[in-house]
């Protein structure tokens, strides 16, 4: 069930928001004990808001496609009057005094908040295992991670516990769980969606954006999260596939892929070619420096934000997150500056790779959802660190700030989802969504 499917029925009064919200709350009640997607369920408030939405719509005051739609928020986004835990005991006494800007925008669009979703503590990880509330579990295979850090959000969409959700992405934390759970994740262009009222990991790499059951649903949410002056009423239409020109950056983004992931991604790219898209080779000359640049920036920024509580309340962090933050404190200023210069260079290289194409096409996640507890995965003969593998395909576009979207492109023989990533031009997110609609339709066919 998608937002695009139910919104017209709600608008016509054929489907009540109260019923839809009850259905989501029932799914949460049934599935959350097993999957641990939600940290907080705001059932009573949600039902009250849903009944209010039904009255408004019956009275002729329909606000748009999100009116009466049950949505969730990653629990580092403020929802007035509720704790924003960031999945950490460090914030156990926190209660949000106000909505985050993105929360307010969803509220103004008439969305119904059903709860706050689990995440990797302080968004500092890719698996949603290190959480004060316990690990979240992949709905396809609960022995595996849902990806992260927005793992609970991805589970919520994949299972229908909410129809929309908002997550954050500092190195891939929207796109990674979207790929691991078989849904769509849109990381907007850096700075376009407000991060005010969102607990930061790295303010220069953090992006706030939607996870969704389809590209259209991602657009509907993204559109509402935008500043009012940027919003549109019409849904974007798919770009004609035979006029779609994609750039494929061979090398770094394709050279450490799990064999099953590689097969699915290459099959999807071949399918696009057969259906008329043009796929050309492009290069990112400094791609091999991306991980080093990213590490020094996210460590420097994370160390600054957590410096006080690492001294006063170290025992309130999960062990792995505390150790990474402690390590982060050893980054030297000169190396942070080197990384800043590298970031600017990589952004310019992504711009250059996009010359003459509508989007770049890459894998979204180099491996399928890893088993919970795994620290390495065998890829091309050698064990690689899970964290590095999971960040590898997504983090370049946090450094560059370009809009990027993950969408499902098949499954492994074990049934684990695989994600394809499209990366668009800055200032042209609607064109990226149009390309994604075309790719989504081609893969579905």
């Amino acid at each position, binding site marked *: 069930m998608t937002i695009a499917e139910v919104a017209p029925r709600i608008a016509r009064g054929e489907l009540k928001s109260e019923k839809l919200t009850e259905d989501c709350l029932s799914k949460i009640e049934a599935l959350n004990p097993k999957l641990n997607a939600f940290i907080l369920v705001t059932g009573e408030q949600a039902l009250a808001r849903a009944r209010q939405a039904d009255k408004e719509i019956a009275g002729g005051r329909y606000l748009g496609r999100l009116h009466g739609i049950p949505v969730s928020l990653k629990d580092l986004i403020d929802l007035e009057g509720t704790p924003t835990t960031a999945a950490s005991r460090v914030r156990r006494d926190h209660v949000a005094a106000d909505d985050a800007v993105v929360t307010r925008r969803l509220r103004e669009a008439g969305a119904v908040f059903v709860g706050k979703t689990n995440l990797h503590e302080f968004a500092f990880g890719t698996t949603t295992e290190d959480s004060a509330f316990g690990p979240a579990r992949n709905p396809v295979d609960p022995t595996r991670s849902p990806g992260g850090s927005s793992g609970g959000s991805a589970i919520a969409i994949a299972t229908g516990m909410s129809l929309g959700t908002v997550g954050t992405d500092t190195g891939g934390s929207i796109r990674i769980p979207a790929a691991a759970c078989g849904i769509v994740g849109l990381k907007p262009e850096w700075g376009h969606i407000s991060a005010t009222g969102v607990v930061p990991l790295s303010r220069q790499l953090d992006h706030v954006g939607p996870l969704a059951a389809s590209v259209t649903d991602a657009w509907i949410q993204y559109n509402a999260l935008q500043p009012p002056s940027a919003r549109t009423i019409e849904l974007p239409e798919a770009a004609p596939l035979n006029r779609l020109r994609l750039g494929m950056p061979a090398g770094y983004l394709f050279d450490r892929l799990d064999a099953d992931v590689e097969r699915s991604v290459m099959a999807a790219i071949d399918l696009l070619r057969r259906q008329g898209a043009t796929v050309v080779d492009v290069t990112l000359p400094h791609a091999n420096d991306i991980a080093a640049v990213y590490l020094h920036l996210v460590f420097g920024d994370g160390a600054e934000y957590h410096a006080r509580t690492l001294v006063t309340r170290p025992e309130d962090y999960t062990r792995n997150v505390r150790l990474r933050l402690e390590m982060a404190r050893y980054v*030297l200023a000169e190396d942070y500056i080197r990384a800043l210069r590298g970031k600017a260079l990589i952004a310019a290289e992504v711009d250059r790779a996009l010359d003459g194409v509508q989007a770049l096409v890459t894998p979204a996640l180099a491996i399928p959802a890893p088993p919970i507890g795994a620290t390495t995965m065998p890829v091309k003969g050698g064990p690689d660190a899970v964290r590095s593998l999971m960040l590898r395909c997504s983090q370049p576009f946090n450094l560059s700030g370009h809009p990027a979207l993950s969408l499902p492109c098949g499954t492994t023989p074990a049934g684990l989802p695989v994600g394809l990533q499209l990366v668009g031009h800055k200032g042209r997110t609607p064109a990226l969504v149009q390309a994604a609609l075309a790719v989504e339709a081609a893969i579905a066919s």
Partner: protein
Amino acid sequence: MTIAEWLADAKADAEKRGLPELIPMLESLAQATERLRAADWNDDASTQPTAPSAAADLAQGGSTE
């Protein structure tokens, strides 16, 4: 400070703070720092400094004068 010196100091500090689990992690960080310092966008004070827009110039294949 060379990376070897930094790593030795960081390891000693981690031991002193009762965090020996950090030592292998610091060794990984040192490898990443080594890569960062070897990158071709870094300046050398004995030569002409790159311009403020050097990153963009380099990506365009242009001059960094």
